């Protein structure tokens, strides 16, 4: 398969120079390099600029409601655990509207990937603050400046027990593609936070001029605790680590449910359950 085969004819409506173009290319490369068939994949998306990827990627998918990319993706895994699920969403959808799903997804540990396009504001609705907007961020909805400190999603993920925690800078297509491929191949719930600086809103949050550095895949929890705290999504100081900040294999959803296990063994979904339960 070539990345071109993953393109659609739909007109792309992202702004000129939007980093979502980079993410789209990274995702295509990761899919191609993963070695799985195009038909094996199902993407889920919710509402936001990043989620428009649903229209631009030629794989099966569900374009769901705001904040629900994760539960819909989890549902796909319940319906057919053999499908490769890529759940796309933004910081608004995952860290604000759908935060409960994020916490529980770590517990279920379904073998799927969550890709967060984190532009640290609600761009599609013209710049209101999300849970990762920095304190003091002024927008039409917050003219006095955001009062509350942001959430550190990686720290939360680690506390929740997510077994694959990674961060990328959308500007770096090669690195993002490489991390996404690892996330697809990881057995369990993989969380990839992509910093996707917006060109129009919350320019102050951009990491363009910040010092970032790439780390090797880390399996040490102590080190991970240090790494997730280096960037608190608020202060302008310190370096930002990119790469797989934590990796640990643990039983996946389909290991824990005998019904799903049987479907996995026979490589079928419920639609062909006769083959699994005969």
């Amino acid at each position, binding site marked *: 398969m070539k990345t071109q085969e993953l393109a659609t004819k739909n007109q792309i409506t992202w702004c000129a120079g939007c980093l979502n173009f980079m993410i789209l290319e990274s995702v295509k490369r990761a899919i191609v390099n993963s070695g799985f068939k195009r038909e094996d994949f199902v993407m889920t998306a919710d509402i936001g600029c990043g989620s428009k990827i649903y229209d631009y990627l030629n794989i099966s998918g*569900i374009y769901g409601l705001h904040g629900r990319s994760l539960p819909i993706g989890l549902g796909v895994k319940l*319906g057919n655990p053999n499908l490769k699920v890529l759940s796309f969403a933004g910081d608004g959808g995952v860290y604000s509207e759908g935060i409960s799903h994020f916490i529980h997804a770590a517990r279920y540990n379904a073998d799927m990937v969550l890709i967060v396009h984190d532009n640290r504001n609600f761009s599609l609705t013209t710049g209101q603050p999300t849970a990762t907007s920095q304190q003091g961020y002024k927008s039409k909805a917050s003219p006095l400046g955001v009062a509350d400190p942001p959430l550190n999603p990686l720290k939360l993920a680690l506390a929740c027990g997510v077994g694959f925690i990674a961060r990328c800078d959308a500007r770096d297509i090669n690195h993002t593609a490489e991390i996404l491929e690892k996330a697809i191949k990881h057995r369990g719930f993989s969380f990839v936070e992509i910093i996707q600086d917006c060109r129009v809103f919350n320019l102050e949050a951009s990491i363009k001029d910040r010092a970032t550095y790439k780390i090797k895949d880390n399996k040490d929890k102590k080190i991970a605790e240090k790494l997730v705290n280096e960037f608190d999504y608020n202060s302008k100081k310190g370096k930002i680590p990119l790469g797989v900040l934590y990796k640990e294999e643990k039983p996946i959803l389909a290991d824990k449910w005998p019904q799903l296990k049987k479907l996995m063994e026979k490589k079928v979904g419920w*639609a062909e359950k006769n083959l699994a339960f005969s």
Partner: protein
Amino acid sequence: MRLNILIGGKAGQGINKISQIVSNILARYGYFTFNYRDYQSLIRGGHNFNILSVSDNRIGSVESKLDIIVALDDNTIEIHKNKLKENGIIIKSKEFENFGKNLNVAFSGALIKTLGISKKILIEEIENQFNDKEANEAAEKGFESAEKKFELKKLNNKISVMSGSEAIANGAINSNIDLYLAYPMTPATNVMHELAAKQLENNLMVFQPENEIAVANMALGASFAGAKVMVGTSGGGFDLMSEALSFQGMSEIPLVVYLASRPGPGTGIPTYTSQSDLNIALRSGHGEFPRIVIAPGNPIECIEKTNEAFYLSQKFNVLSIILSDKHLAESEFSFDKKPAKPIKVKLNRKIPGKDIVKASSYEHGKFGNTTESAEIAKQNAEERLKKYELIKKECEKFEMIKIYGNPKAKNLIIGWGSTKGVILDAIDSIDESIKTKKGNYKFLQVLYMKPLSNQIKKEIQKSENVILVENNLTGQLGRLIREKTGFKIKNKILKYDGRMFYSDELKEKILEVAK
């Protein structure tokens, strides 16, 4: 012949077990029973009671006047003695205090003796259920302590006992359900319990996500992937699901929702009954999209209509809602009929894994691609309406309404759902219209709330006096009928205190407005 037995005590004393033991024995003896459960939202203590109604004829309700009170505590006598008939009997707790965990078994023994059923049959049932020597002894001692007051002769009826919840679960299994998703909420939870207990033997899965929003969205994800999915909840949880119901309308991913209602608004009275959620079943979710709402009235209908809900949902890739309430879900009904053979439920869509399939919450073109085109938006909206016309036609193959009693009667009673049993019993206790098909009454039961049968208008036009019976404040079916037929039903018998109708109470109310 009809007896009403109240069994009361504190939560945790085993009231339900007494009802179960005695109902099982009575069923084997050929008697019809109806068991109403009245319990509070607590785990131990308080005051709970069951009313077990017994008859040699089909029944679907209880009466307010009692023949026997089985009192597991003094409080029960205090609360219910004014409803005891003049020659009624009280079976008290004092004599059984030493039985510990077998207290309820001893009471069952005493009750069986009072009814005039043999000790042999009692012991068979106790052995069957417990296989425990101490339980046998307790039953025997209870039996010996009581006096025979009635003489129930063995009848030849073949009786099964089932709750509405068990029947919904059976209907789902008959439809080859793959996944049941739910977050616990009374009175829907028993369906989850039933299916969870039976999941491995029936090759299905029961999963409890973090909240109802996740339940409904996950359900759509799973259904998209090819599973036959049902979700279950009560009013409050249904409110949370309504965003996903609207998403269903746009994405056309099939979904079956089981909605068991209880009194609201808000948390309301969680363990009691109400028919006040018909409106949300019909209308929740933003935008305009087709759906099916079916309200069964007894366990046989729960089995059959759940199957129809699955069939229609998959055939048309549409939302089917099965509407129930606490009284239907948690009462134990008896019957001597079998449900119809299940209809085969088949998927009618492409699924991912083999093809590239897209489903969207946005208005979309043929391949699932997002569009804002006025032309396509208009076309799609009209397609959704057109689909509803096809659904309507298909529904006509099923019993959308049922009519009982004298077809030429002056008085037409209209009701739906859990009031079915009590309406039939009340009418028959007036003039046996149901049994003889003569007399002054007929009963129109509405099963399909959406689409609504065209027959309803014709039946109303034929009748001299129309009486609406509903377990809610505003007569929601009455309003729906007015919306669809222009006919305003003036005689309304409505009850909205969280309790179901007693058949003697309903009879009096019908007589007040009947012609």
